[in-house]
């Protein structure tokens, strides 16, 4: 049996619910979960003030309702599964180290910032700074996987050091900016200035994009690792055509203002 929370009162101002994670609620009954402290603006309230709680904490947590003003859900979680049936607010899975988060709807900005492990799956769109560093920090995610079936916006994978980010739709500007390593795959179109300041790492896009003047074209090739990756994504219902699996990719290296050891791969029909 899992824990099921459904929102009965919409918040007037943002709710912050970092304690609502599947691992922290293990062993709790519905009363205990109702008593967990969450933050409503500047007031401390409890889960029960906004959610009806059913079930028992056994590592699987379901939330439903319009959670677009609920922030920090799944923050710091290390195991278990969190399912959100609806839209969700900012800082989803911030700093998580393990476990799985699945969102039916859309997510706000800062999905999985500075995460080190685990998996986030979003069926809809997300906004800015997916899998990124917070301001001032040079290092974004250091591990884990983020799969977004819809679009993402700016600074996806900012400062990423390891892990995988996949966007089924388009990305905004500065995809993979200042990336240190890791992989970003954008199946739709990328905005401008992808890979700016990247040191290492790989950005893959299925559509031509405007390259920064500090990237240089190397060759066309058919990377084997990509075949494996794209097949795996296909099995997760990402829309990937066979020709993208078998076809050739332009390889660009950059960013020359940094170490020039990053690469951007562009599918070329």
């Amino acid at each position, binding site marked *: 049996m899992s824990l099921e929370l459904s929102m009965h009162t919409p918040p007037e101002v943002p709710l912050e619910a970092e304690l609502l994670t599947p691992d922290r609620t293990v062993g709790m009954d519905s009363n205990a979960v109702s008593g967990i402290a969450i933050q409503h603006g500047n007031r401390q309230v409890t889960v029960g003030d906004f959610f009806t709680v059913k079930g028992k904490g056994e590592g699987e947590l379901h939330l439903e309702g319009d959670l677009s003003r609920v922030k920090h859900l799944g923050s710091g979680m290390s195991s278990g599964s969190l399912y959100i049936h609806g839209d969700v607010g900012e800082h989803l899975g911030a700093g998580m180290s393990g476990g799985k988060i699945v969102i039916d709807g859309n997510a706000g900005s800062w999905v999985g910032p500075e995460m080190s492990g685990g998996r986030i799956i979003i069926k809809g769109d997300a906004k*800015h700074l997916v899998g990124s560093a917070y301001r001032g920090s040079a290092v974004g995610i250091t591990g884990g996987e983020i799969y977004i079936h819809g679009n993402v*916006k700016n600074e996806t994978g900012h400062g990423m050091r390891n892990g995988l980010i996949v966007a089924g739709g388009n990305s905004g500007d500065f995809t993979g900016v200042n990336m240190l390593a890791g992989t970003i795959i954008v199946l739709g179109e990328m905005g401008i200035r992808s890979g700016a300041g990247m040191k290492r790492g790989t950005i893959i896009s299925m559509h031509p994009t405007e390259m920064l003047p500090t990237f240089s074209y190397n060759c066309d090739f058919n990377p084997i690792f990509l075949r494996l990756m794209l097949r795996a994504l296909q099995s997760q219902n990402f829309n990937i055509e066979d020709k993208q699996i078998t076809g050739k990719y332009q390889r660009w290296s950059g960013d020359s203002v940094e170490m020039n050891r990053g690469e951007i791969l562009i599918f070329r029909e």
Partner: protein
Amino acid sequence: MAKSESMILIPGRTSKQGTSLNKGKLKDEYIEVSTTVEMNLDDMTRLKLQEGDQVRLSNEIGSTVVRCKGRKPEDLPAGILFIAYGPPSSQLMGSDTAGSGMPLSKHMRVSVEKVSA
């Protein structure tokens, strides 16, 4: 039928806006400054606009009507509009700050059309 054209709007500060600000933002002078858009004279000719004509600027956010004023092509390139910040430019400004706090308040793509008198 009025011709509509896509241009880039650059709101900015001017010293006239600065001096009129001191009188008060609800005073005529300030309102006049912030409701005037500068346009390349060639663009004006093409759009059949005279100095002081009213134009509607619009984008996916909203629209506003301002008076136009010609600038020589060497001072303002074709396709660029300049306006002092103020309530009219707010009408066209999106609120997505991309995790920065700053809305995109310059270089907004707007469509321009003459408002018939």
